[in-house]
């Protein structure tokens, strides 16, 4: 992918306002229903009753990219599907993040060998990825760990995310 031209930031940056907005964005991520393969089933299981994503405000799966601010690339990216993924990414409004879920989205996973003609080995070749969730498919808990990591990335630190009760960092005083 060409050197990623940074999306132009907001015209006026107010630090305190930005921080408050990030706190709200982090705790109400709206993912886009966009399952490619096996990881989509684990994403649905994460959204269902046992591993409820709604505990983190992220359970509202929006079908259209216009109303979502998180794209979860869950599954193998076929070469025929790659332009569509880029189109969907570009059609998402500004503060947007991307989780590459599963080994296929991270690096082609079990289908990457020399002589592979059909898949794009990794979502970061076509879209800027923020959080990688490894696994084949990753368990729903791993996806939730990915969500928490993304929330920390948005609020730039777990301690600043005052609205969150689940501590991700195992080490006490990281």
């Amino acid at each position, binding site marked *: 992918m060409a050197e990623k031209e940074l999306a132009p930031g907001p015209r006026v940056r107010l630090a305190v306002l930005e921080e408050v907005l990030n706190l709200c964005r982090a705790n109400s991520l709206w993912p*886009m*229903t*966009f*399952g*490619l*393969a*096996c990881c*989509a*089933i*684990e994403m*649905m*299981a994460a959204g*269902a*009753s*046992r591993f409820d994503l709604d505990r983190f405000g992220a359970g509202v799966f929006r*079908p259209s990219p216009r109303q979502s601010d998180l794209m979860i690339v869950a*599954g*193998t990216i*076929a070469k*025929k*599907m790659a332009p*569509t993924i880029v189109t*969907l990414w570009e059609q998402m409004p500004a503060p947007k993040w991307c989780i590459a879920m599963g080994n296929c989205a991270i690096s082609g996973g*079990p*289908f990457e*060998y020399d*002589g*592979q*003609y*059909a*898949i794009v080995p990794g979502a970061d070749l076509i879209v800027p990825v923020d959080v990688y969730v490894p696994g*084949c*498919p990753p*368990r729903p808990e791993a996806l939730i760990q990915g969500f928490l990591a993304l929330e920390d990335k948005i609020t730039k630190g777990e301690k600043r995310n005052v609205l969150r009760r689940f501590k991700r960092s195992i080490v006490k005083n990281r």
Partner: protein
Amino acid sequence: MTNQMLEPITEQTYYLNMGPQHPSTHGVLRLFLKLDGEYIVEADPIIGYGHRGHEKMAESHLYEQFLPNSSRMDYLSGLLFNHGYVAAVEKMVGIEVPPRAEYIRVICAELNRISSHLLWFGTYVMDLGGFTPFLYCFDDRENILDILDHVSGSRLTYSYCRFGGVAKDIDDEFISATRQFIQRLRSRWDDYHNLVTKNVIFIHRAKDVGVINRELALRFGCTGPILRGAGVAYDIRKAEPYSVYPEMDFEIPTGTAGDALDRYMVRLQEMEQSLRIIEQALDRLPDGPIKAAVPHKVRPPKGDYYFAVESARGALGFYIVSDGTSYPYRLKARVPSYGNLQVLTDVLPGTLVADTISILGSIDIVVPEVDR
């Protein structure tokens, strides 16, 4: 002549991509619809967005290395695909599988079939607008995934069946959890029937919608619940008995009209039959080894072999051409969803766009299985 001039020259048909990213296409299927208002004039399912090249991959990998691929084609009935592939290679090499392993395979295969039907039930009713059954079904499905996770280590993409048997023996905890699950799911049937089957909106959305009769199923090569919904009692477990299914007594539920409601009822009854199979298999579980002695690298003799298994979506067949080495010369997976999906090109024209969702949901396809 005069009103000829007034004739407005405007395009009538409207092209719509029910495209790769759509909540109700269960994966990356693209339905290219030619619409006239609400009615579909022509439907062309365009596939290939989930194509990974399994068959090319098989030609440069050992038989053992293709094991994980087999359950990633149709990840909802991963264990059934696993069982199909492993049984095909065993038949080629002539490995004798110990009875205990056969029983374990049947128990886990039927559990996997139930979990696939439960997921279909949840997403189908969610496509038609009801969100609560989705949560009920995933709650039940998580129980099955725990049971299978306990014994095979993975929730969705299993490599539990190995050449000559299974990877790990089942213990009492597995058996008691399965028996508990059977009781629990049996108590759920009337919940599901009250919640969905007796719901008048669901009946209106599913009755006489997407009628696929025997002749259409024969022309398009549809198998599985679609064929049984049309009234044909064709099930590979009875037509070409394999493993220990001949010793199990179970019926094959069939529908009459072949519409979406019949396919729905067939799948629900199939889940009950699977519960019966699991119960009988648990009662007659023999002791003994769980894996036969198998050479490290399996080397089937020359020739071509076809082995069919009943997956949750229909007749799954593995056609393997072997050249005597430990690499398959050609491996073709005859997947049921390929034929099941193609029937849409004949069923959809003339129906409403809203019916497309109901028909596609009732056919229950998995896209990476169609695309291989």
